């Protein structure tokens, strides 16, 4: 089998480890049953940036994110987060993770959900208010999660991940179903967090969100198609939009 261009650009994506690398993934292989979901993925995410993980649904974005958080059984390769192997107990407070399904208790209020997870994480209660403010749910604090809209539920789930002020935030499609104004708000929050030194890895299949990222990783069928800053990718593909660049880079042998 000939090596596609995807593999060579993937190795470019993970050069020698640098001091500001918050996440380094090398040759990650994940198999689910008979199916190889990730055949050997390498990426790096710098501290203080928002890195977008872009690709169609089913391309392995969530699996890659789960491996970074340390909840995925992996077959091989190396996943390092904050210079420690992914899933190390020490990282459980320093890495925040938000899944596609809002992982909060529907029969508790927003405040009660945050209160419970704050006790588990052993953070002061001032963090509860700060996290609720960061996602703009002050008005829904006493509302049961099951009565919230889909977008509000995802934000409640995001607020839980913000509680421990993690240095690494892994967000799986956090803006799905949000109205454009809220989406803009949330992206502003992401950049504020990045400005404070947090490394964010945000997956999306919405191409127009790509332009808001500092770095991009384009993924398709379990492989990294290309990675780099948005302008660099546009230049490489000779394209004017990220969507065009994706198509051009995905088909070029």
């Amino acid at each position, binding site marked *: 089998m000939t090596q596609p261009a995807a593999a060579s650009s993937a190795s470019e994506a993970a050069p020698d480890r640098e001091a500001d690398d918050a996440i380094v993934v090398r040759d990650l292989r994940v198999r*689910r*049953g008979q199916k190889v979901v990730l055949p050997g993925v390498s990426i790096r995410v710098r501290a203080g940036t928002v890195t977008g993980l872009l690709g169609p649904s089913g391309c392995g974005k969530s699996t890659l994110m789960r491996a970074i*958080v*340390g*909840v*995925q*059984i992996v077959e091989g390769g190396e996943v390092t987060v904050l210079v420690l192997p992914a*899933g190390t*107990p020490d990282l*459980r*407070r320093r*890495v925040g*993770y938000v*899944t596609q*399904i*809002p*992982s*909060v*208790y*529907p*029969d*508790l209020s927003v405040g*009660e959900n945050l209160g*419970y*997870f704050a*006790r*588990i*994480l*052993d953070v002061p209660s001032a963090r509860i208010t700060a996290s609720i403010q960061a996602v703009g749910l002050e008005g829904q604090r006493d509302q*049961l999660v099951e009565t919230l809209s889909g977008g509000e539920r995802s934000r409640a789930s995001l607020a*839980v991940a913000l509680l421990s002020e993690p240095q690494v935030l892994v967000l799986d499609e956090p803006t799905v179903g949000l109205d454009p104004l809220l989406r803009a708000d949330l992206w502003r929050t992401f950049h504020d967090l990045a400005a404070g030194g947090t490394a964010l890895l945000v997956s999306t299949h919405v191409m127009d969100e790509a332009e808001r990222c500092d770095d991009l990783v384009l993924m398709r069928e379990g492989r990294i198609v290309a990675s780099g800053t948005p302008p660099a990718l546009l230049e490489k593909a000779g394209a004017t939009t990220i969507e065009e660049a994706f198509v051009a880079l995905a088909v070029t042998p």
Partner: protein
Amino acid sequence: MSARVALATAARILRQLRRDHRSLALVLVVPPVLLALMRWVFQGQPGAFERVGPPLVGMFPLILMFLVTSIAMLRERTNGTLERLMSMPLAKIDLLLGYGLAFAAVAALQATVTAAVAFTVLGLETQGAIWLVVLLAMANAVLGMALGLLVSAFARSEFQAVQFMPAVIMPQFLLAGLMAPRSEMARPLEVLSDFLPVTYAYQALVTVTATTDLGASFWRDIAVITFAIVLSLVLGALTLRRRTA
């Protein structure tokens, strides 16, 4: 081990349950109503209700907590909160302790209400102290919870989880000596019942309600129940995985 995590979890579960008024009402009302129904059913057989009734007071929590735990755990798995908790700094045993504490508290309430009705309105009598019956009911709740937690790992849907009750708990009730004395059962069944934890839970309650003298066999029953709880909790903890496929 962290008391903070266990207590926070117990408080969270009790808060969720308190919200659910209908479930709470069912938990408290169903056992006394069933006992009253039994008394009526056994009216033509003198002595039958008096024999089976008192130990049953302490057996209800076992069935209930088995069901509640298997479904509650399944929900934690499907709504992603279990994975979230597993990615946080907490020991699995603390989570299980939280569940145990919450359900033991509910069992205490349930057994107190059931005992109050049984030993006053329904005219049942216990030789041993009522608080001992309530204490055994709490132990049974934790046993039911531990067994429910274990089977929840094998259920893919709430529909399946509910089916585990007749599959796992009913046979144990049939063989525990409640329907027919164990010594009168076919020998293979009697031997089989020696290996089922519910047998000992029932025997301990029979001893407490029918005699005032807690002999060596009572303490052996307590030891077996404790062992069964610890074993199911350990096996249940093994089914809580930090990494999944």
